[in-house]
């Protein structure tokens, strides 16, 4: 039996550096191309590896992605995660945050983790609600926006960001914790890690395997429609000048013109 079981929610997303492809029929992000591990989740993976780094500990990645995509999971496995569970099913197309939480909850429940870690929000959708919806469905307490996480016996101690600073929060395990970028510095996968990741197990599950009905998830379960997506009105660039020693004076003149000084 492993000592400490940590689940990390790992999202695989289209490269955010590339322009987003919007499906014209559903007005949703086209996720059928190559996917990578969401950078936001690399912090959660690293945090999990630091908290559950013992020989008998276990870090399980849980992900939902189309077309059996595992590229991002291999990245996290190469960092050192033990194994992965991927839920991939055509019926999941168009799932919103609550639908995603239902799927992940069904996949996580049998693992009976001590701790579930997720990013505060994904880079592509950034709703920031999925981990808390997941916690509610799992019947677990949650602490969001962690900038520091430590385990003390059966308690997780979190420094939780607030508008004015941070709070110290203590929560009994099992629990769901969301981490910010900067909570830890993610390691780069080593060559050895990359080689080892190739043989680590990834269980691929369908909705039926989880006992979920298509109506509860996907576009039907989202119970919302996007009627239009358009590019936001772009701000146009103003005057761009090379600093030839007069840069500060140009700023001063602009501030005077705006009557700020």
């Amino acid at each position: 039996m492993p000592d400490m079981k940590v689940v990390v929610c790992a999202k695989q997303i289209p490269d955010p550096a590339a322009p987003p492809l919007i499906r014209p029929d559903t007005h949703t992000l086209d996720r059928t191309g190559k996917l990578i591990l969401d950078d936001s989740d690399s912090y959660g993976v690293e945090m999990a590896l630091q908290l559950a780094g013992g020989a008998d500990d276990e870090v399980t990645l849980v992900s939902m992605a189309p077309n059996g995509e595992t590229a991002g999971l291999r990245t996290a496995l190469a960092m050192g995660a033990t194994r992965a569970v991927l839920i991939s099913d055509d019926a999941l197309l168009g799932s919103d945050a609550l639908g995603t939480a239902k799927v992940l909850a069904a996949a996580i429940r049998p693992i009976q983790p001590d701790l579930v870690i997720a990013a505060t929000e994904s880079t592509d959708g950034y709703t920031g609600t999925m981990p808390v919806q997941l916690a509610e469905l799992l019947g677990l307490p949650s602490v969001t926006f962690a900038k520091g996480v430590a385990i003390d016996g059966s308690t997780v101690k979190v420094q939780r960001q607030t508008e004015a600073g941070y709070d110290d929060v203590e929560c009994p395990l099992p629990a769901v914790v969301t981490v910010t970028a900067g909570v830890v510095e993610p390691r780069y996968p080593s060559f050895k890690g990359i080689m080892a990741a190739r043989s680590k197990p990834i269980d691929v599950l369908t909705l039926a395997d989880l006992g979920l009905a298509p109506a509860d998830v996907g576009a039907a379960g989202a119970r919302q429609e996007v009627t239009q997506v358009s590019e936001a009105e772009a701000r146009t660039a103003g005057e761009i000048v090379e600093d030839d020693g007069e840069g500060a004076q140009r700023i001063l003149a602009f501030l005077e013109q705006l009557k700020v000084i």
Partner: protein
Amino acid sequence: MALDTAWVLAQVGEAGPTSLTLELLTEARNVATKVAAISWGPHVAAAAATLGQYGAGTVYDAGDIGDALPGVPIAAAMASLVDAGNRPDAIFFPASYDGRDIAGRLSAKLDRPVLTNVVGMRSADGHLETEHALFGGTHIALARFTEDPPHLYVVRAKSFTAEALEGGSAPEVVSLAVPDTGSLAAARITGRHEEERSGPALDEAAVVVSGGRGLGGAEHYAMIEELARLLNGAPGASRAIVDAGWVPYSHQVGQTGKTVKPTVYIACGISGATQHMVGMKGSKNIIAVNKDREAPIFSIADLGIVGDVHKVLPALIDALRSRN
């Protein structure tokens, strides 16, 4: 036709309701006939009159929840109100830490989806159509729910302008019972830490001076603070230098930080990741100083100086000091 009833999750501190709470109340009364505020904590009674001035006809007060995080208990209190037959058409949550927690919990409890990152809305035929900022604000989506209300929305700061009602009346204050949620609500706050601040608040300042990686090191952030002080502004930061530990998170401007719309935003050594731009592109005027001519920040700057922050900022600071 307007909606019948809207609820607003009202965050109230010692200084009164947050500015985002007042923005939500104002917009709620624009789209709905009746507005109720849902609030908690030790300062609700003192803030009730203000909540009324901004449109709340009723204030549901869940009382002091002590050291508990609000997500579980407040969502449970709201869910029991809904289950008792009190069904608003829309529930608006602030896009704050606690606001998102409560929205997520309530969404799962009621098995209702939630629309997030709302930056605009209009009601038509008794339906609400909402605008959402996507991909760091480069795209705007229009969305609507396809099932019967109540509908849940998380709204970004500074999407609406707060305006008090003329002759607004005192709201009816109704106490709201918090159900026992057992171990779900087991998280406890054991210590609170507030960063010290001397100037105006970051999200209220008329001038914001922000620093990024281009500063080169944490020790150079003092230039940002000094420039902000000389302009009666607030110092801000990109996510990169917050994550690097140069400055506290409360300084962060961007998608996961604060949204600012000052008269002037001065970005120093910030390249302009979408994560950052979504938090400041609504500024009335943007000045950028960066040594990379190709930095995305220049595409939205009204005045861009392609130069070294270590030359431009000291010169600017000297010039401002000599004027004062």
